[in-house]
């Protein structure tokens, strides 16, 4: 695990040494502010719409952050040094995830001013805010894992970002498609869609099935990174 932490710390530092990390964090916080302005037009001190918009924004953030993890490093030629070091692929996968999760944490933390602002103007229910933030973290980590898997499979950062967005949109479309289908296929597609697993967080509940879904997404993403790195050899 020490190797994974070393990789994660290095990646996190590298992201914030460049303008990219600060830009991503600032852009996510700014977007959260803009969304809040729109969502408060109903003059109600509730944040469920705001959180649901942030879940979508997380998809964009994941696509941007994950493309740097492998694709950008391969393009720069530094991935060869990492993969010829005495580290296991799972340590590389976890380390890369930790690195991008650091940025995710910073980006999410930067939005806390929004619920504080709403609290100063009204009396929003604290439960959905807490579960909303828990959901943001869980969904963010899951989306980042998907992004890492795509990033590991291509040396092109642009393709990695677009590929991540495409996979996440496909998962979202699975939910849309499920609405027009019946039977077992409906249940499968419904389960596959992240949309059906974030509603609990918006309502102030944490369901084990929703947590399990995003943890599974994270594990599948990491396992895919390990498989892809092995296959690349």
């Amino acid at each position, binding site marked *: 695990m*020490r*190797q994974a932490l*070393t*990789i994660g710390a*290095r990646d996190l*530092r*590298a992201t914030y*040494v*460049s303008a990219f990390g600060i830009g991503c964090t600032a852009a996510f916080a700014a977007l959260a502010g803009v969304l809040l302005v729109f969502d408060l037009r109903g003059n109600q001190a509730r944040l469920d719409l705001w959180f649901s918009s942030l879940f979508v924004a997380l998809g964009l953030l994941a696509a941007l952050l994950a493309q740097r993890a492998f694709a950008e490093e391969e393009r*720069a*030629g*530094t991935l*060869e*040094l*990492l*993969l*010829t*070091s*005495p*580290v*296991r692929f799972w340590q590389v996968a976890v380390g890369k995830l930790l690195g991008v999760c650091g940025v995710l944490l910073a980006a999410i933390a930067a939005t806390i001013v929004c619920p504080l602002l709403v609290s100063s103007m009204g009396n929003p229910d604290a439960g959905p805010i807490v579960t909303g933030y828990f959901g943001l973290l869980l969904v963010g980590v899951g989306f980042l894992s998907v992004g890492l898997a795509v990033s590991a499979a291509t040396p092109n950062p642009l393709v990695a970002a677009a590929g991540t967005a495409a996979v996440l949109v496909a998962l979202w479309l699975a939910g849309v498609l499920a609405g027009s289908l019946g039977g077992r296929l409906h249940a499968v597609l419904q389960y596959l869609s992240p949309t059906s697993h974030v509603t609990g967080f918006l309502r102030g509940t944490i369901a084990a099935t929703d947590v399990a879904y995003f943890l599974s997404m994270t594990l599948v993403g990491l396992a895919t990174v390990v498989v892809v790195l092995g296959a690349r*050899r």
Partner: protein
Amino acid sequence: MTAGVQVIGVGRRFGSTEAIADVTFDVEKGEVLGLLGPNGAGKTTTMRVMTGYLRATAGRVLVDGVDMAIDPVGARQHIGYMPESAAVPREMTVIAFLRYCARLRRVARGARQKSVAAALRQAGLGGMADAPIGTLSKGYRQRVALAQALVHDPDVLVLDEPTAGLDPRQVAETRDLIAKLGRTRSVLLSSHLLSEVANLCRRVVVLDKGKVLAVSDVATLTAASSTRLELRVSGDPARVVQIVTAMAGVQDATVRGDVVVVKGTGDDLGQRVAAAVVDAGIGLLEQRVTSSGTLEEAYLNLVRE
């Protein structure tokens, strides 16, 4: 001597393309082994398989007795690798990057500072420790790439074009360093500079089209390469061709204009040819050795065949 690295019948395919096949050689402890070959010969693929970046589709690589296929992490712990690209993260300072590499390669916490300082000193980066890598010249970035290969004090060094892009003084310093490192470690050195390989290596591996053409002492290789003589005579050149063709060690003799070109082997070829021509009563106006027994000649002979 014992082998630090053993490459045994290694092959690597990319789809239907066979990049290298049946590559076999070993790098002994206390040796700098040269890896030669034209572009596309499979040198980089061989090095990548040796360092575990690529998997061998056939054969085995043993690093200090550890099988790369069975225990890649254990095997890589013994290797310091400087890739051809020498790509190093530009956003980090030199010392931060070396500390990161030391941690990644499991250098004990207590020994880390000393290891980083030693790598900085060996690579000639003493005054550059706090400089961001992105601000360094290509030559210094090349040194950073070398320093990271040394930071965990590996038994085996795999260096792909380590002097490419360096100025003449840096080239000389790096060669001295490689020679010094090669006294106690197993060093595989790939270089297009044949003079560099001839100076540093006792043995070379010559690759072409993914196959090993020769694993040989430099001295044996150069001794077997042909000497090329150009003779200007006062008599009939065709008669000279007739005389020298019958001599031992002469591989070929032809007339080009008013010059007789003789190719053959042996240190005394020039003396013997001159004596034979004079003994035949032909005036020898001029005799020039245009190439003789160099590694370059030996290498070119091998890859042209």
